[in-house]
């Protein structure tokens, strides 16, 4: 009780991401965030396209395309993008989700003109520069990424099977971001060019520059380097379809085998979309269930009974609808039936009994991650771009934190009971392969 009072008295940290905003005539939206403590700069360019936007028969294409964006143009031939950047001490990476494709570079502050120039060049010219050799090469790399991170990693197959269990066949999230080998193999150069035309124009992108920069100078540079690029098409993304689970998922647990030591039982439910009412409550619920030793599921299944060696809970927030995922991995000697029964029982008990202390501890953890997650200029650039994508307000950070701070036990329980209804979720079991 004393701890609870203490926590309640502690002030929440002030939090803000100040920025200079402007938009070019071709539609490119730009934010500049100044932080001159270190001679560093981060450039984060986000396109509003992801695996949800892939045409039929082309699963995995948005992510394959992300790889192709590094394969060179007339101005920066194959290999130059990375070579020129790394020669100056900068580095880059990119990621693809269901909703977005994000390209970022971090480097010494003096590299900013080069980082922006390389992005402007490929935004303008990449589509026409991809040939079969480049496509084949990155197709091989991506298929090896799939083998390494999904097929040859313990429990990696979960990522392949869960989307189809939680999202119905007509839902854009029905397939995994990494895609199938067959569809990756089927991709053509014409697909690449069409995808570039459809999605990679400046009107469909948002750019954030953060670090030791001067806003007026950045604006002048961005206007010169990006302003001449034609607007391109304004893609229309269809609204989210209905969210009923595939009927088979509710009635029949899906069982797959993998090279693992012990069974894992995964439970997944459709849950409120990113930033929608209930999203933050499910986030807090996930922390109450499985964040730390005193979390409810850990206490019940790992510490107490003990039937599990680990537990996990997460609200995987997405634009068109989220998944709430819970899993437990069996201790030696516990079979999947017993594990699933114990997991369901512990979950129900946790929701029934969660109290204000659970919620306050979870909220304190989110307060800390809002600070630690925004320490680096690259994290801040990425977060500003995330807020531009959804909810569309770059000043959202304080309100984002407030979504968590406003919660109490009754509200978390109410949302949890609505989302985790009996018969509303899917069950996936991973069992050890029979030894060969």
């Amino acid at each position: 009780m004393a701890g609870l009072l203490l926590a309640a008295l502690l002030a929440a940290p002030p939090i803000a991401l100040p920025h200079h905003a402007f938009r070019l005539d071709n539609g490119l939206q730009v934010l500049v965030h100044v932080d001159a403590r270190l001679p560093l700069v981060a450039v984060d360019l986000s396109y509003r396209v992801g695996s949800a936007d892939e045409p039929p028969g082309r699963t995995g294409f948005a992510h394959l395309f992300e790889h192709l964006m590094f394969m060179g143009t007339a101005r920066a031939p194959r290999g130059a993008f990375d070579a020129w950047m790394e020669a100056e001490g900068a580095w880059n990476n990119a990621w693809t989700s269901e909703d977005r494709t994000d390209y970022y570079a971090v480097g010494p502050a003096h590299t900013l003109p080069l980082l922006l120039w390389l992005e402007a060049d490929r935004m303008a010219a990449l589509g026409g520069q991809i040939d079969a050799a480049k496509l084949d090469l990155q197709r091989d790399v991506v298929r090896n990424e799939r083998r390494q991170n999904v097929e040859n990693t313990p429990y990696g197959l979960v990522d392949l099977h869960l989307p189809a269990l939680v999202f119905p066949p007509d839902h854009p999230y029905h397939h995994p971001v990494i895609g199938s080998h067959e569809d990756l193999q089927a991709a053509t150069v014409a697909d690449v060019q069409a995808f570039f035309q459809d999605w990679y124009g400046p009107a469909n992108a948002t750019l954030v520059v953060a670090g030791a920069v001067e806003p007026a100078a950045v604006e002048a540079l961005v206007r010169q380097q990006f302003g001449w690029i034609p607007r391109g098409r304004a893609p229309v993304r269809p609204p989210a379809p209905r969210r009923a689970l595939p009927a088979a998922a509710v009635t029949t647990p899906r069982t797959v085998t993998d090279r693992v030591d012990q069974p894992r039982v995964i439970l997944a439910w459709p849950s409120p979309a990113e930033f929608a009412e209930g999203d933050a409550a499910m986030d807090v619920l996930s922390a109450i269930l499985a964040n730390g030793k005193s979390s409810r599921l850990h206490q019940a299944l790992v510490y107490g009974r003990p039937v599990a060696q680990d537990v996990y809970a997460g609200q995987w927030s997405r634009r068109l609808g989220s998944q709430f995922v819970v899993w437990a991995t069996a201790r030696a000697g516990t079979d999947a039936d017993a594990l699933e029964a114990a997991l369901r029982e512990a979950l129900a008990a946790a929701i029934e009994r969660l109290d204000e202390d659970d919620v306050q501890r979870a909220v304190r953890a989110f307060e800390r991650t809002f600070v630690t997650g925004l320490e680096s200029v690259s994290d801040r650039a990425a977060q500003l771009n995330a807020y531009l994508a959804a909810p569309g307000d770059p000043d959202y950070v304080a309100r984002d934190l407030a979504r968590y701070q406003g919660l109490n036990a009754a509200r978390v329980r109410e949302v949890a009971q609505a989302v985790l209804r009996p018969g509303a979720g899917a069950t996936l079991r991973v069992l050890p392969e029979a030894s060969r």
Partner: protein
Amino acid sequence: MTSKKKPASPGRWWPLAVLAVLITLAVGCGAPPVDRLGPRPTLAPPTAYTPPVPTVIALPRVPPIWHLQRASVPLVSVVVVVPYGAAADPPGKAGLAALTAEMMEQGAGPRGALALGRAVERLGATMTVTAGADASRVSLTVLADRLEPALALLADVVARPRFEPAEWARTQPVWIDGLRSLAYDVGAVADRVADVCLFGLDHPYGHPIDGLPATVSAVTLADVKAFHARYWRPERATVVVVGAVDETTVRRLAPSLVLQWAGPGESPPWPTATAPAPPGPPVVAVERPDSPQTMLLLVAPGQALSAEAQAAQDLVHLVLGGMFTSRLNLKLREEKGYTYGAGSGAPHLRGPYRQEASAAVQAEVTVAAIADLRGELARFAADGPTPAELEKARAAARAADVEIYEGVEATASRLAGLAALGLPPDADAQAARAREQVDAAAARRAAAALGLERGTLVIVGDAPTIQAAVTGPIERRDAEGALVSER
């Protein structure tokens, strides 16, 4: 926020081995139209950056405190580090240092395991106890206005862990289950098999930090208590404090950290560096039936290095396998498409450890991938980096220094790592200066000295694939590194 990103969102580049440190314009034919983008920009020279040096605060009866004030975010990280880790595990009890660390989290001072966890969480703090090869540490991160109550919890964990039998009875079997699971993780398997082959299980660096099922089964709670009493001692510890806290406050709070912390008995000796490993066998294979990829890990014994030679080695590893445009990644990934990423490195430990180069490659191309990997290693050993590659690596290392010291938690962790190795507080600043002095000859010497081209190939994959890929003797081991007799 950060916790919301689904893990394992496919990304472009995720190297297997990440290093500790880290022109022409093509013009078409005919009269070209004016290029609205303009030519590739000419860049101004970079701003110089030197890694920050913490202030060392000396107080009576308190370990040295390395303090670095950072006002940028309202966060403080505190690390208490002692220079003893898995290298101090007794023979046959691999995993003792790691289990001691784990048990320190299972209740301390007036609180049992769950109460301690809740107390930390109520402050919105994180507190973890971990063991590495050369050091063990308690790491705390908390918002600055909650530092004082959090420090009290940290002091309990460091000095007054409860080590209750009931907690041990819970902890040990779960730990063993986790180790059994690791036998299915190809990267972990290759890693521990390589160490066993180079050093042998009873060498300080020859066993996995987390132990093996059999060695952890041999550990008792009495062993854990004895390890804590012997090695977690204030006279061998360093306290690192980084973040939004000033020196006056640190001086005021410091005594609470170590009150009544001094076990009976003599201080353990300062750890010393071990001798380099002898050369290992040419090929060690671990079977993984029907594996879609073959894990390739080449290792060679590390050597004791001067500061100058260390700086040169760090730079040449960046060139060989520490960057996206490194030799290995460009060849195996960007030219051939055999892998999602290839890399190399040499972890910094107190004594000579190992050189490594690795890639997980598509099973069908295993033969060609091994040839390319060995070919690149031999070429690099013979010729060393080009002048442009050396400058690229220097630029990368300079930039990495800035990023390493950007965050409060990462900065505290970095400084604790230096303290654990017995290095001075300005070690990174010294290393940065040493890197600037590395010339072409020193880089060539460092490249030639890696020895990876004649190293041990640890290969985890399908048996027929391995059989087809390797000529000559193969030493067969299981996923825990034990020798397997020929069938």
